[in-house]
């Protein structure tokens, strides 16, 4: 007789909130966020670690959530795109993406923004080359790349001025 796989309770810290979900051990962080927690801002473009649309921050570092198992993340701080705007006020990186038209279809955008945010958290004055390296793992099929660089530079500037 075939059986469903066993589920276990996993506690996650997502966007500053404690969450408990019942999942199979094979559940990726990406599916846990999207399906179990309804946080669909993080996108699934390939589910095999090649496109970067699923980028979230784990303990402040960008990770591909499709290559991260949810059970690996117990007690880690996870931050997703939904956590950037506060009280309806967008994060400077989000603002800069709109201002510089650093997106077209917008599907890769949450991942791009999370990668840039992680960079700026670490390095408030990045060079163009730093920025490019930070998003080499984030594919954009519409070709918004030149404007993503401009947006990151403008966001860095804005953050240095105090947001």
């Amino acid at each position, binding site marked *: 007789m*075939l059986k469903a796989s066993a589920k276990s309770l996993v506690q996650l810290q997502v966007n500053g909130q404690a969450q408990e979900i019942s999942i199979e051990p094979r559940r990726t962080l990406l599916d846990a966020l999207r399906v179990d927690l309804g946080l*669909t801002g993080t996108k699934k473009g390939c589910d095999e670690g090649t496109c970067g649309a699923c980028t979230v921050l784990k303990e402040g570092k960008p990770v591909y959530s499709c290559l991260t198992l949810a059970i690996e993340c117990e007690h880690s701080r996870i931050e997703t795109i939904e956590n950037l705007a506060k009280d309806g006020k967008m994060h400077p990186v989000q603002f800069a993406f709109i201002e510089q038209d650093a997106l077209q279809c917008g599907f890769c955008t949450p991942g791009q923004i999370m990668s840039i945010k992680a960079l700026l958290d670490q390095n408030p004055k990045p060079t163009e080359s730093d920025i490019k390296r930070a998003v080499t793992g984030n594919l954009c099929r519409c*070709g918004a790349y030149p404007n993503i660089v401009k947006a990151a530079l403008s966001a860095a500037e804005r953050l240095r001025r105090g947001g």
Partner: protein
Amino acid sequence: MPKVVTQQVEFEGHFFEQTVVIEGDDITPWGPEKEFSVVGQPHTRIDGSERVTGGAKFTHDIHLPGMLYGKFLRSPHPHAQIKKISTSRAEKLPGVRAIFTYENSPEIPWRMGLTKLFDKRIRYAGEEVACVIADDESICLDALDLIEVEYEKLPSVVDAELALENNAPKLHEAGNLVTGKPETYARGDVEKGFKEADVVVEGTFRTQVALHNCMETHGSAAVWEGDNLKIWDSTQHIFGVRDMVATALGLPKHKVRVIKQYMGGGFGSKNGAGKYTILAALAAKKTGRPVKILLDRREENLLAGNRPSTLQIVKIGATRDGKLTAIYHKCIANEGAYAAWVAGSTGPSTRMYACPNVKAENFGVFTNLGPVAAFRAPGYVEGTFALEAMMDEVAAKLGIDPLELRLRNYAEVDPTSGKSFTTKGLRKAYEIGSEMIGWERRSQIKKQNSTATKKIGFGMGSQIWGGSGGPPAYSVVKINNDGTAVVLTGTQEIGTGAKTAMAQIAAEVLAFPIESISVELGDTQIGLYSPLSAGSMTLASVGPAVRGAAEDAKKQLLDVGSQVLNIPIEDLVIENGDFLNKKSGERTPVKKIYEKLQNYMIVGRGARGPNPADKVVNTFGAQFAQVEVDIETGKVTLQKIVAVHESGRVINPLATRSQLEGGIIQGLGFALCEQRFVDPHLGLVLNASLETYKIPTMMDIPAIEAEMVNMPDPDVNNLGVKGIGEPPIIPTPAAIANAVADALGKRIYELPLSADRVLNTLYPSSQNERSS
């Protein structure tokens, strides 16, 4: 009064006659002298905040209580007959809710009747065999492993030339030639033209299969509410999906509602419903629950469409003074297992230059591979690469500058019809672009910057494409009693910024601040018909209807305002959301009149007018490339692209620039790094993932200088706009390939311009050693 007219319509490089109803669009077009406050100004996206906060709901993000998921079992064989299928083990897996196969599914004709929803005959590896519906995608995948299928393998063919041979395995009863015959074109007498030529050049070109790789894979979610079917589909054509679903399921159209608010890329591959759409609807009916079926990345790359590979022969004759006497262009495209049309790869050769004698033959061939789909300027990217390469060869033979040769053969009128163009800014594009790249100084730049192992080269490519848009397309503008307005259409926002452009148009006409305008689209039930968002036609089709609706609404607003405010209508204008009495200078907010009128609503209606009957509408452009080729490693580095395009009036320079950059970047991917690989013996795709199929990344982006020749088109529509979605990808590979040929002093006739091709072209003997 509605008028029924027959007019010539262009779509994706194909021209055909269509009967359309024209509804009183007597609005005077915005002429070149017209001054604007919102139109023509750079404006950030009105839907930007949704897209940067994760709030935008793509089809992938539709999640409903009780939702089930679906996954397809796909054939591992390129050509086979299914003898037996057993799903009994899979059905027993907990969480599996339904399994569909040819045994229990309706026989729905698919791909113009060339196959069925589930066909026992398999024509490519990856074709649908069964569909499992379960509580979770991972359960679906487990269940797929438990389905047992017995296949009788059939001989397969994946090479287009081999498929045309008499003894080749046949994919369809009528043979392997799409539509049974090539698409042909002729003017003048090419034989005579070649005899008159002082020089004749001929080349055989090959272009690769390119995969769309939209970041959001294809997919649908479906739910039945009573006998009403609601579908979310990642599509460029909501009305097309509605019609396909209604036909497939035998439903009246008012019972099918298709919604698409946000879409993660399409590029031509999302122009209709997929089998996933039909299965989501069937499964939702059967289970009584919402069902979502999304393709994964590998499925996307096996079956969701591709730009077909081509084999092209181009032969050009010219006189000593650089006048073209004849062009012959033959193209054989590998269409995969199903196709209803063949992309117009020979189109650029028939339309670009003023050549009296032209002959073109365009073959589409069925093979045991995933079917083609339109891919941003289908055919024209490939055809322009071959044509422009041969133009450079003519120039070299005659000792004429490549740009000068193009100018000597500049088509002042459409060479296929003799009709004049509405606008043609190509000469201006050549002028501006050549200045920007330093065309006149290029020998100097090459000398200064080339080293013993790194060679600099310059090349150019010209672009012609459609982009007129056309009727039917409708819009309604509603004015709310707080002085805000809603633009309603039934088009799609696929990431181009169409929504923002339409808001700009409405804001301009109404003289409202753009912040007080919202735009609704992407819903067949509440929206008004608009064509598919493809063929560079969205803004040029829907934009004029929006202007019409806004003009109608404004007329009503002034009329009512004049009566409520007791101001003669000739003294009344609207300015920045206020009524302005021109005589007294007194301002009254628009919402003020509603204090008396309460919930009165102004509804303005607009429809797209006809295209001009006596002129031809095309878009034009020129691109120039500067490359560096390392002759030791074969690596091609694209240093700079200059792009200058003419597509009529520019509504939003910010979004237009993004379109230009996006097209160029996809074009450089096609020129330099993208290629689907197929094992010729097994008939299997070897690189259906983004790790092995390389699209451009952040590190591959050159300096891009892009400009528009802003040339309002007085004839095309009331806005003077033409499309810009596809034009910028067209000349990029041509310009890069010509630059690489210039750097090497030798031509590579095949794309992509990979390091091995560079080395094999430079050092042909080593290639012989390797292959022996």
